[in-house]
């Protein structure tokens, strides 16, 4: 189990950040290697995610469900996926909240996530997977900030 516990700082107003984070298309655009597919009847989405564990690339097919609370500007993202090569499973449960930051003006987004990787790859990637997730989180932060800046402009 990989635990993510981050506070992302974004130099944009909370409403702007929320507008990006509450739009599945926008959010997926912030995740490196991810692409959004069709929306299902229950409101969840198909998605694909390609992750590099070391030099090895793994392509996951995932189902992503978003639960949003616009009043509290918080949400939960549930994702389950597997790949068709080596039988690797991934399951992630992520919660976030958009808060106002006073100095300098902007937003803080606390993110908590549990990512589970199972199957054959699990033993192969060992501790490396946690660092890969960390790196993805960092890139997510950068992309989110860029998208918020674009949305505000």
């Amino acid at each position: 189990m990989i635990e993510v516990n981050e506070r992302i700082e974004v130099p944009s107003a909370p409403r702007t950040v929320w507008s990006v984070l509450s739009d599945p298309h926008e959010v997926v655009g912030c995740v490196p290697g991810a692409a959004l597919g069709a929306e299902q009847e229950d409101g969840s989405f198909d998605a694909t995610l390609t992750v590099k564990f070391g030099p090895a690339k793994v392509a996951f097919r995932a189902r992503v469900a978003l639960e949003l609370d616009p009043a509290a500007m918080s949400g939960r993202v549930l994702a389950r996926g597997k790949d068709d090569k080596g039988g690797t499973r991934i399951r992630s449960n992520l919660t976030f909240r958009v808060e106002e930051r006073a100095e300098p003006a902007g937003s803080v987004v606390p993110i908590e996530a549990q990512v589970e990787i199972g199957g054959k790859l699990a033993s192969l990637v060992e501790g490396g997977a946690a660092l890969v997730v960390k790196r993805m989180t960092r890139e997510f932060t950068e992309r989110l900030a860029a998208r918020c800046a674009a949305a505000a402009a």
Partner: protein
Amino acid sequence: MKVYQRLAANFKAEGVTHMFGIMGDANMYWMHELDKLGGVKMLEVRHEGAGLGMADGWARATRSVGVATTTCGPGVSQLATAFLTASRAESPIVAFCGEHPTNDQEYNQRLDQARFAAGCEAGFVRLNTPDDADDAVRKAFYMARMESRPVMLSAPMDVQQKTFEDDDEPYKPSSTLIPPRAVRPDPEALRQAADIVAGAKQPVIIVGRGARWSGAGEAVLRLAKRTGALVATTLMAKTWLSEDEYHVGVAGTYGTRTAMRLFEETDCVIAVGASMNRYTIEHGYLFPKARYVQIDSKPHVVMAGGRSADCYVQADARAGVEGLDTLLEERSFRNVGYRTPDVRKQLAGQYEDRKEFPLDPGTVDPREVIRVLEETVPTSISLFTGSGATAGFSNIMFTRQRPLVLPSHFFGCIGQMMPAAMGAVVATGNKPAMLVDGDASVMMHLAEFETMVRYDVPLLIVVMNNEALGSEYYKLHAHDMKSELATIPTPDLGAVARAFGGRGRLARNAEDVRAAAAEWIAKPGPMMIDARISRSVVTLPYRRIHYGEDE
């Protein structure tokens, strides 16, 4: 004639010339008889498991049956790890083991050797009666050869002492039972394989040790040129066929990043004498777009991930590749594939690892040790690489072809490669060779250095000494745990080697390593270089596995 005398004569008739082990009262009479018969050299070792390990090295180097021997009970139980290692290596071995007397079930050294052998994945043949003496030996050698595995021939002490009646009958060795034919490919299977290969734009040929054993080299190179294929090897065939300018080294975790990038576009993998296990194809992730053609002499092989090749051709590797190439030639098939100047440019620097690490004081960069050895030790010298963390340097960075290049790996254990290297050197007529292994590995069977000295085995042991259980050290570090828990200091192993009567040097920098290697090359003999390497330098595989680095 006593049964043990017949058994000894039968071993000789099987063509045995060397054996490794320790004498005890349950194999003593048999050994004494072999000595009397002459022509079989007994190498007395310091641990039965190491003796079996040497027989394993013999088998891996020559593909002929290696022979080990132990007394009953405690002599046998020492064989566990070596049996398992040999079983995973598919090494043909016969271990002649004494067994406690059948008429004394309270015997101090009693052991249920059949159950022990089963647990160790070894074949088992018991000498139940005096009349079994011929059948038992023949069966043990037959099993070892045909099933390519270690076999325990268990001979109860009392049965050995009984009279063998038919001593005027000549013994028929196992070779009289074994057909010499190679497996020919099924034409239909070969046609299917040719269809797949002819439809591929970017093929890769992966050769394993089966291809090497069958002498498929030239045929593989021809097929690679015709199909535009890259040539890669399994770890077990490391450096083989590297004269090909589109050789990409090992496929798997010990591969280069350049190779892995190229494999992403591979649409057809032709596996030759390679099991295609999880390490070679990284559970299938290494070749995401490929269809597989597999040529192997076994009836069938299931690849990693529980999948079958898209076309499996049961054939001797050479016969299979030649057949495939002929079919493609008949179709006038030619493909440029990967064989372009651009790919050759990419491959030029594929083994370079420029990442800088600050070195611990008084130590040398382990990569520098390998570079120096690669440069200074002539290619006429065979190479054995050990297991554990430091294999991550040697299994990638040694790239020159040598008469034998045998990596460790089997059963994932440490300590087994030093005996195997000794056995392989003995098997190849005491030709000088080099073993590069970690400190924990070498310390495990250090006593066998004395065996090396006693028999003047010209093996250079280069200890990649990080004074740690390296794998655990790096794993603990990656998990933010106390990595010092995996550190263990060693004495100066150069001095230890000298105390054992051999030669030895302590090396703390590249020049020390170069000078010590030159000393050995000038006069090969039993020698150990204790190369103190810096723990700060992390192997490429660990950077990938533990830190997710794309290097």
